[in-house]
């Protein structure tokens, strides 16, 4: 994390990749305990990674890293579970008497992240998709979109912040119907 904060992108990537299996275990456990099934595990993991990235400034270099990451992950997991719990509540009560077999069918929808990336605007969407899906570097993305590397960096950062906001707004919309 230290190297990542100091601008070592490779070290930072390794850190995020190493965290992912732990986050997956945690998300699976949390969703299972809440009786929500496994379909959303990857969505929750992605939301946690995004939060760890955007909030990495709240980790103090003199603190141990694991409790900090754990606190971020727990907060986002609880958030995600609350949202999904609300979503699941009504239909299940209705269906339970109709359906003889109550085994939940996991929805085969596209991942939440893909859906939310589609809601980014213009350049932010182009840049996030180019770097995420096509694995392009900042320089290649700049060349392909014919904008400066600085503009790509700005659009990427804004895009990621907006992704977190879109997750939140989804939550808000459901809180106050």
């Amino acid at each position, binding site marked *: 994390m230290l190297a990542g904060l100091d601008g070592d*992108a490779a070290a930072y990537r390794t850190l*995020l990749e190493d965290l992912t299996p732990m986050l997956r275990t945690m998300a699976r456990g949390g969703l299972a305990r809440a009786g929500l099934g496994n379909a959303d595990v990857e969505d929750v993991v992605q939301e946690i990674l995004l939060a760890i990235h955007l909030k990495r400034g709240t980790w103090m270099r003199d603190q141990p890293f694991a409790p900090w990451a754990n606190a*971020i992950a727990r907060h986002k997991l609880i958030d995600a579970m609350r949202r999904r719990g609300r979503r699941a509540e009504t239909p299940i009560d209705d269906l339970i008497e109709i359906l003889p077999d109550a085994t939940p069918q996991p929805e085969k929808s596209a991942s939440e992240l893909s859906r939310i990336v589609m809601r980014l605007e213009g350049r932010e969407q182009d840049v996030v998709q180019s*770097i*995420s899906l096509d694995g392009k570097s900042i320089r290649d993305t700049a060349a392909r979109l014919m904008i400066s590397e600085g503009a790509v960096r700005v659009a990427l950062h804004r895009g990621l912040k907006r992704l977190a906001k879109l997750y939140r707004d989804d939550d808000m919309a459901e809180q106050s119907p």
Partner: protein
Amino acid sequence: MNTNDLINSLAADQTPPGPPPGRMLMIAAIGALVAAAALFFAMVGPRDDIMTAMRTVRFDFKFVYTLTLAFSALAVAVRLAEPQPLKPGETLLLWLAPGLLMAAVIAELIAVPADLWMPRAIGNNSMICMRYIPMLSVVPVALVLWALRSGAPTNPWRAGAVAGLVGGGIGAAFYAAHCNDDSPLFVLVWYTIGIGVMALLGALAGSRFLRW
């Protein structure tokens, strides 16, 4: 879009995360003092007899109380900006200012005959107090909330309420220089209402703006 795709983007985003929330809160507190001071001198002003008032214990205690409240709440806000769960006692500091006020109230009840208790608690300026404390506190509270956005408070209501205490304490400290009701009994009733309103507004604003 799978998780490795997202990690591509996260690793590529090397925008530095900005100053730590603790420093942002210090900057916000300084800004809050400046903003409250500007508004105070532009619209309210110190009371006429401030030079003699400054030599009385009751007048001075109002500043001890309100500034203790503001800065102890600021210290707690710095902690609440971190996501790690609170350990027991980490918000204990919030009780320091109320403790001081209770001690002052008890001293006042001992020093003053009982038939003066009610008149002193009701005072002369309670309505002005109700109006000026929120007016002087709004910008300070907003600045502290803004600084908290750079943090990761896990309970936005609680963090917002503490922001309200910081800003409310600062606003009340400036109002105290105008107010000619100096009894701790007055402070207990009316300052508590004024600062309490700010804590409530802070909590409401926090629940909306401090989520992440």
